[in-house]
């Protein structure tokens, strides 16, 4: 990072130390206030207005929110889609991630290799993932259909990208494929952090395999699981890249939401209403804020559920 070429100051009186923690914290706090907090508050103000970005703003109170929940079935559907895809991915990520981490952790050789290779999807640009998946699941030329036809599983290709449920499943697969390595890495890190003598003590007491895993590894990994569940729910509710890039992002088409809007997520609707199909900034802000409320609700609920009682710090 920055070089250490600061001038050496003369010895200071103890009292001057007191100002340093504030000075050190200041850049972050200032930058946060300027580039995150202010926009968030300003967006709230906008959400109470009817505004298209150029003309005059008209204050309309909570009308945007009321319209969203009562007059916009697409918004409700986008929440529904987002939740469904989240439910399909988060538990699987946790389970498979933990299981894989455990098996890799117990390997005598090749730990680094497996970890590194499985992390590759996480660093691949979402744009590439979008195209590769839409290529693989194409009805006519797609790898998946060709494979299934050759193996004789199907007589006729499946319209993966055109079906309501198949499209959601493919998006869930994209999320799974992309994030598994991240979960794996975090869990592996957590397992490495457990002191080795705990395992040795357990071994001495005759604990083996599954018993060790459920009684020792699992409880000690609890904080990590809470962290992963909460953060993946937060990011799951903001799903955008995968569905957007599976449809639309590649062909240059402006199709929104996939087949019958079954792949329309909340953020996609937000982006579309405020930047692409229209410039309804007030309405868009209301969508963003509704999602924000949902995120707060879900993160508190998931924290309570996973962290359990008496474990709050």
């Amino acid at each position, binding site marked *: 990072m920055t070089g250490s070429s600061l001038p*050496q100051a003369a010895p200071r009186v103890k009292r001057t130390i007191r100002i340093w923690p504030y000075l050190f914290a200041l850049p972050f706090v200032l930058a946060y206030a300027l580039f995150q907090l202010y926009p968030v508050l300003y967006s709230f103000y906008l959400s109470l207005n009817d505004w298209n970005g150029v003309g005059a703003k008209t204050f309309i109170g909570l009308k945007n929110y009321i319209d969203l929940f009562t007059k916009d079935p697409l918004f409700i559907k986008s929440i529904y889609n987002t939740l469904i895809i989240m439910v399909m991915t988060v538990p699987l990520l946790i389970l498979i991630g933990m299981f894989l981490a455990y098996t890799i952790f117990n390997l005598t050789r090749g730990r680094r290799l497996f970890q590194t290779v499985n992390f590759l999807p996480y660093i691949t640009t979402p744009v590439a993932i979008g195209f590769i998946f839409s290529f693989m699941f194409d009805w006519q030329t797609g790898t998946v259909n060709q494979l299934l036809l050759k193996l004789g599983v199907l007589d006729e290709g499946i319209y993966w990208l055109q079906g309501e449920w198949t499209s959601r499943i493919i998006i869930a697969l994209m999320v799974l494929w992309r994030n598994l390595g991240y979960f794996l890495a975090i869990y592996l890190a957590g397992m490495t952090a457990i002191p080795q003598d705990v395992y040795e003590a357990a071994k001495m007491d005759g604990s083996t395999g599954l018993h060790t895993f459920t009684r020792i590894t699992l409880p000690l990994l609890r904080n990590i699981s809470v962290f992963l569940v909460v953060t993946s729910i937060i990011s799951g509710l903001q799903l955008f890249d995968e569905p957007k890039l599976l449809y639309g992002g590649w062909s240059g088409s402006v199709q929104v939401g996939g087949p019958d809007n079954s792949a329309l997520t909340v953020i996609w609707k937000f982006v579309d209403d405020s930047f692409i199909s229209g410039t309804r900034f007030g309405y868009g802000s209301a969508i963003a804020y509704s999602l924000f409320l949902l995120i707060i609700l879900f993160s508190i609920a998931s924290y309570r559920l996973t962290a359990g009682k008496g474990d709050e710090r």
Partner: protein
Amino acid sequence: MRYVVWTLLLIVTVISLVPFYIMIMMSTYFTEDIFKGLPLLPGSYLLDNLRTVFESNFIQVYMNSLVVSVSAVLLAGLTSTLIGYSLAKFHFRFKRLLNYFIIISMMVPTQVGIIGYIIEMKHLGFGNTLLPIILVWAAFPFGAFFMVQFIKDTVPNEVLECARIDGCSEPGIFFRIVLPLIKPGLATLATLVFLWSWNNYLLPLVTINDSRWYTVPVFVSNLGIVHRTDYAARMTALAIATLPVLLVFLAGSKTFIKGITAGAVKG
């Protein structure tokens, strides 16, 4: 049992690699040939695809992405480390408050304020520059949280005390003692910020209208639309685009894992 485990791991690994591999293979084919079957072996069209890519303003776009990611790493790294040091090693009045502040700010998604942010940027006159996609990284709550944890665990109080007794100034302590001690944490944070800012799609998509300031993800989804949709050329561009992230990750993978262990694991 051992064979079962290995087969399983190999299957998962292959699945992880397949799309990655396809991306690289596709970049060696003529676009129309991609659709004839699964490209398993390298084709012979790589040079032509490279030409298509570099005939566009790919180099400009690539530099844009580099500028954004490097600035993001420097900015986020600096502010996060400073506040991390402050909260981990000092006792002061607003410490508790600031700790809560970081946790809460982690829960506020950037998307919530995106419209306000864009308008703010326009008012500041940054509308058609790279600044909007750099400045979002100036305060990165996850980084701050990560650094608090990391510095708490890796920097011994005694060392700081000794330095103070020896008359080292506070910024001197930070730059000469704390920074060298937290290199693994910095490497981890830098890797993640580089990765996330490099792959960021939503923000550049909605903030940048001028193709001169496109970053790689936005650029690639528009490449070759004029004449025909050249998928192979796009794949080539993407493969080149993945390269720096791959290098950053491979270079840092050892410290990266260590860093995660010490920083994020405390949850």
